[in-house]
């Protein structure tokens, strides 16, 4: 999906967010592109994920600024439920990129020319090794940066809230000191 600026409205149109929850969203993934019309849900054969050689993929290769736009985490939930485990792009929308590792999707940033090269090898086998931060395809390997916290979320399946609650004493101390400095913000 090599066009730039694929926004979260395309990944999951708002009309496909039907319940207050995180599930039941895969059917609405890329709904505007994936189906023939809004009422006729026959797959549109022109859409990449409907083509046999790409069906069942767990990796997306995309253009610049993938996941820009709305903060809706539903975009990531829909991708995860569909089976996507990693997205390779030259850059991501910031909120989308933060949402990915919390939901088991690795947002992988490679140089634009490397992403273009990878896309040209498709359909084909691409593999990703998180511990060594490496994307492999044919005889090429690309190393990528991944921040430490995102890596722990992805590899250890860390619960970020439980982790932060271990710092509850520090948080309480911060708030007590801050309340002395900025009492006006501690409204009740």
């Amino acid at each position: 999906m090599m066009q730039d600026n694929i926004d979260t409205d395309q990944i999951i149109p708002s009309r496909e967010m039907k319940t207050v929850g995180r599930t039941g969203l895969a059917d609405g993934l890329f709904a505007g592109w994936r189906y023939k019309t809004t009422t006729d849900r026959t797959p549109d054969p022109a859409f990449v994920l409907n083509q046999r050689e790409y069906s069942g993929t767990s990796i997306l290769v995309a253009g610049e600024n993938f996941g820009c736009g709305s903060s809706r985490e539903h975009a990531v939930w829909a991708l995860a439920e569909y089976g996507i485990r990693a997205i390779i792009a030259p850059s991501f929308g910031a909120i989308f990129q933060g949402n990915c590792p919390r939901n088991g999707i690795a947002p992988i940033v490679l140089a634009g020319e490397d992403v273009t090269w990878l896309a040209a090898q498709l359909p084909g086998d691409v593999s990703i090794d998180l511990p060594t931060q490496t994307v492999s395809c044919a005889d090429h390997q690309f190393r990528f940066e991944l921040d430490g916290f995102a890596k722990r979320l992805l590899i250890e399946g860390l619960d970020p809230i439980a982790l932060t609650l271990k710092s509850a004493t520090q948080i309480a101390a911060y708030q007590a000191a801050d309340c002395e400095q900025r009492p006006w913000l501690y409204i009740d």
Partner: protein
Amino acid sequence: MPTAQTLFDKLWAQHVVASDKDGDLIAIDRIMLHERTGGVALKSLNEAGYTVQSPARVFAIMDHVVSFKTDRGRDDSRAPGGDVFITQTRAMANGAGIRLIDTDDARQGIVHVVAPELGIALPGLSIVCPDSHTCSLGALGALAWGIGSSEAEHAMVTGTLRMKRPPQMRIRVSGALQSGVTAKDLVLHLIARYGAAGGQRSAIEFSGEVVEAMDIEARLTLCNLAVEFSAFTAIIAPDETLLAGLRGKPFAPGENDWAAATDKWSELKTDVDARFDHEIELDASNVRPTVSWGTSPEHSGPIDQPIPADGDPRALAYMGLAPGDRLTELYIQGAFIGSCTNGRLSDLRAAAAILRGSKVAPGVRAVCVPGSQAVRRAAEAEGIDEVFKAAGFEWGAPGCAMCFYAGGETFAPGARVISSTNRNFEGRQGPGVRTHLASPATVAASAIAGRIACAGQGNT
């Protein structure tokens, strides 16, 4: 001598609770929620058995899918099934003991319009909301950014978020905006020039004489579109213009705290020698009324220029356009004024000044939805609603309304709509709907002309 700091450095340092090799634990002062993405955060918090750490500092406001009919009932939604988002968010907000501004509350409106009105957003505060346009609130000198629902849950339970410090960018705007050119035109011009990824996930400080001369509502518009520029957020240093407007607001510091608060806020500015990762200098004098022609805000240009020869073919195909076409020759079927971008009183005044004594062209459905109940009341007190209605506009009840399609009523597929909103993505305002982003003045002038037109030059 201490190292020179940016405004962002100071805001960040104020909120660091702890640090490790992976980043900082940042204290969160205000959490805003709305029914579309906030309800699900409250739901998962409940399911996990967590409680909200500081309920008094969490605000839930109904805006995204509320009906914009003026006779709406308490649970009425503009989207099929949207009533469930309203009723479940209400029940969970009440259960969590957080502050709720409900559909029938006199303070209701779009979260980013309401937060400044009530003093929920203040200089120096860290503010998050599971909504990408939270960056608007940086106009008040706050560190405000959009997050996901999982992060909203994290912030509610712990009072903090785990963050990696973003890079920093300064955008200095010099010169002066020409008459009829607004903050909206300026920011569309910026995005068109540097691209939708041009903000490089930075915390952007807007400064310079043009920004200093802007009123707070214009600054909110400028910061609102920072997310369309791929910024982490935008901020503007607090000044006298801002402080004068904040005093006395319901959640602003009271008279007892006012002097101490303003004293602290006076430190919120970038030191002379502070360094940024990126710098952009913009001359506002060259900016023309700007309108989008494609499906990303970066596909924008001066209203009187032809669509560029290298315009994105996919975007042009969706929009039914070709390189060389002229925006001012395009007939429209819809016009919308509202949203967190341009749904405040100054926006409605600017549009009304153009609409007064004129009629919307035949075949154009024109809708105005004030950004909040306070905006609606103030506009009605000035007779602005009557100007809109006499011109043939529908006058709606506050909410996000037609800024985005959530199912339900919208413009027809293929309809060309000029809109004071923030996103012209494929299908954003409805399947097949072709959105052109513009300032409220340009939307009003276009509604009258029946085609895209510049204010003051209705027939060009």
